[in-house]
């Protein structure tokens, strides 16, 4: 019952947010230099042909009617056709989604596997005496400072000079052999996850430090509970919420297509597709790509909200009176 109280308004908020995103994207395309009409109709359409096309695409209707139709089509999964191939854009996205999905999941798992334990250790060490915790802070700061394309470039340089068994670029789909696929995915994953590890490390460290100042941790220590048990039973769960937030946010970013990693290592993912479409002025793809990424992002945040309510019973509980 409590969850419904909490999630119902969240659902409404997510819908409003998506509506806002769609409106922003719709309007932005209207501001494209040279007029949206010319781009849709192509620069060569002139005179009568142009008027006919304007009629067919309904570009002369009032703007909010166009928006209504566009939105209605969107809701039915029709993201419009590519201006280059004139085929539904959504098909191409669905075809490429698994690739970006794989890269995102691999990166996230690697980042969680390394970032979380290091973050917890660094938070606990900083709590205790001695500077051990400062090492965690240094690693965190270092990792968050090297952009993925710098690491990526360095990898390409190293592995193309002495190809230590890893192929640079040339994506091998999963169904053509796991190991071959992984060989091409390792480099982009690692170059992406350096920043992610630092992000998770710092978030977890701060969350653990904040929990350690709570009264119930002191009470547990006063009861003589083993440090291991205190961490397992009390510290991890109370520190979970900020970590869930950053996981959902960063995973949303990855699912939007890590443009640079895909471009650098020529991984045929969603990001690469949107970037190359921009160069061909295929704005329908750019528009659809941004909408899809935002939609994924908002739904992931919804999942995160749901997780908050599970982790912390206070969230969503009816507030007491005066």
């Amino acid at each position: 019952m409590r969850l419904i109280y909490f999630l119902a308004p969240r659902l409404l908020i997510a819908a409003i947010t998506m509506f806002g995103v769609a409106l922003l994207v719709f309007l932005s395309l209207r501001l494209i230099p040279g007029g949206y009409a010319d781009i849709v109709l192509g620069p060569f359409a002139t005179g009568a042909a142009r008027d006919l096309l304007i009629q067919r695409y309904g570009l002369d209707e009032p703007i909010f009617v166009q928006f209504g139709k566009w939105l209605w089509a969107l809701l039915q999964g029709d993201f419009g056709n590519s201006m280059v191939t004139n085929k539904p854009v959504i098909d191409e996205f669905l075809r490429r989604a698994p690739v970006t999905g794989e890269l995102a999941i691999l990166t996230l798992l690697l980042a969680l596997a390394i970032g979380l334990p290091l973050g917890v250790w660094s938070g606990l060490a900083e709590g205790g005496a001695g500077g051990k915790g400062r090492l965690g802070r240094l690693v965190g700061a270092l990792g968050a400072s090297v952009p993925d394309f710098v690491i990526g470039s360095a990898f390409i340089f190293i592995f193309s000079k002495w190809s230590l068994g890893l192929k640079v670029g040339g994506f091998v789909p999963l169904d053509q052999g796991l190991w071959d696929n992984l060989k091409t995915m390792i480099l982009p994953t690692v170059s992406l996850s350096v920043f992610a590890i630092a992000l998770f490390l710092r978030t977890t460290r701060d969350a653990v430090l904040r929990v350690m100042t709570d009264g119930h941790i002191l009470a547990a220590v006063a009861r003589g509970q083993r440090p291991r048990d205190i961490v397992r039973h009390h510290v991890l769960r109370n520190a979970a919420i900020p970590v869930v937030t950053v996981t959902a946010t960063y995973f949303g970013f990855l699912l939007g297509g890590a443009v640079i990693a895909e471009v650098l290592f020529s991984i045929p993912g969603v990001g690469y597709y949107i970037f190359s479409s921009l160069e061909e002025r295929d704005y329908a793809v750019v528009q659809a790509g941004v909408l899809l990424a935002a939609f994924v992002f908002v739904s992931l945040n919804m999942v995160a909200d749901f997780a908050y309510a599970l982790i912390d019973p206070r969230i969503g509980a009816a507030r007491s009176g005066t």
Partner: protein
Amino acid sequence: MTDVAAPVIAFRGVGVTYRKGPVWNRTEVPAVGAVDLEIAAGETLGLVGESGSGKTTLGRVALGLIRPSRGEFLIEGRPFDPAIRREGALSVVLQHPEWALNPRLRCGVSVAEPLTIRGDLDRQARRQRVASMLERVGLDPGFAERYPGDLSGGQRQRMAIARALITEPRFIVFDEAVSALDVSVQAQILNLIRELQAEHRFAAIFISHDLAATRYISHRIAVMLKGDIVEVAPARTFYDMPAHDYSRALYATIR
């Protein structure tokens, strides 16, 4: 000793109801039932009751921070409106000394704030007024240059009282004003409030869960239980046998 002039403060059937819960099934929570009270100039009314009794809500109504759902709150016969605040007719002293003053401003500036807002005195006159008020509350005027961080809890609370008095208000709300202070310092502040009231003749409400302190400072005491006033009587009766059995049980705890 309280003259029978027109009451400074009057609650006429004041009631407050909070709306709670999500949009589709709003529940109504009555914080204050219906309160009728009057406070004359120079008189302190103690307001005691346990948490959830509605005493703080009533205090917030008196400060205009909450609009009553029912009834009317009058200052010198006039219903409350924001203009009254700018005249400096109203002020408040709250509980936590460490947050009583803006930590980023020098104490003198904070004490002068009500005057600055009223805007009828120039800087020099304000500075002079602050210096004399600091002395009046037992602080060295030099403290005006200090930051709140350098003062003790008792000193900060004295600053808060100086600020509350700087515009010669007609009415002051003390909401748990001494609860966070140590016993030895509490007595200093309670006596200070008594002296200042005798001199400035402001009407006051003294809200507190600390029955002993309230009994000492108040002329009359109203005992609140779940949003209603169960008894109003001179403070003296609370030294031996108050009428209402809830009051009696309450005061038995400090026998």
